């Protein structure tokens, strides 16, 4: 990874490699399907062969019966894991059981569902680590309903992802 040495000129490429990279969702995106689809705009570029710490904030609304399903999708060959901290899918109110579940991998096959509550605004916190392979690309948030329902599962504007390179 880029390193800052005393007395050395700091190149833009060095700073870019060290500074956090973020993505933010500009407008609400609702889903009425259980198939996860990219939340357009909520993605962050990643370079090849790099290790990143991932954090994220996902404000959302979803019906009690529908819930929200999330996935983090990275470039081909990426490894690592991520977890979500939010209300559990069995909850029916804004207080109750939570989930601290974690999955290994960054494809649409690895999803985590969190609880929605009718007419309530909730949020999920994401943390994780992604190791990219020789393929660069993006790390993107995908979402869908956990269970098919007539009311959309909506990720709200302002949701963000933040990546920091932590190669040692």
């Amino acid at each position: 990874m880029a390193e800052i040495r005393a007395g050395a000129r700091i190149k833009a490429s060095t700073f870019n490699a060290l500074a956090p990279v973020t993505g933010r969702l500009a407008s609400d995106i609702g889903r009425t399907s259980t198939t996860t689809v990219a939340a357009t705009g909520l993605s962050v570029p990643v370079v090849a062969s790099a290790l990143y710490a991932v954090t994220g904030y996902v404000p959302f609304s979803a019906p009690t019966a529908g819930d929200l399903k999330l996935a983090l999708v990275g470039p081909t060959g990426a490894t690592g894991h991520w977890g979500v901290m939010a209300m559990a899918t069995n909850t029916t109110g804004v207080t109750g059981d939570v989930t601290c579940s974690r999955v290994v991998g960054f494809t649409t096959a690895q999803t985590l569902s969190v609880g929605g509550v009718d007419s309530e605004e909730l949020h999920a916190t994401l943390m994780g680590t992604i190791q990219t392979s020789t393929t660069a690309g993006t790390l993107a948030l995908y979402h869908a309903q956990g269970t098919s329902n007539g009311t959309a599962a909506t990720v709200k504007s302002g949701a963000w992802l933040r990546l920091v390179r932590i190669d040692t």
Partner: protein
Amino acid sequence: VAFAANSTPRGRDLRESLPQFGVCLQDYTIQSSIDVEPIPGLSVILEPHCSYAFSCYLAYLANTAADLRIQIDSPDLAAGSWAVQALTYLDTNKITGEFVSWLQEGPNPAGSQFLASGSASPLWERITGTCSTGGYGGTLQLSAAQRVSTAAATTVAAYSWLEVTKIEEL
């Protein structure tokens, strides 16, 4: 650190404006032990007379009978507090369940321990804290063990990380 307009930032200032990370690069397994062991990589060097903010993504897999015990140690004379958000080991559901938001504070939080739930599925916990060092620099180190000594393994997963950001020099 604040950079004055038109000034040339020093490398040291730029470096200190960025967070430091400690990363666990291999799974670390603990069996039949409630004695905490330092997790290789989950440590960051602190300077004396500085205040830091830290956070940790601790990914783990623990047997439901064993659960997880963690401890954070700081340099001598350091003060601060740390908090954990995780599933409580007191809940029997062990995948989703009761949440615990726990805070340890005092003149020297080193040595205090937090207990979290194990599960058949991978879990994680979030740790947040602050540490102000005194006359000694040293290491902020995360250690782990089982809550209950059990032959089945408790594993801190590779790629867990500890992030430390300097807030100010004291």
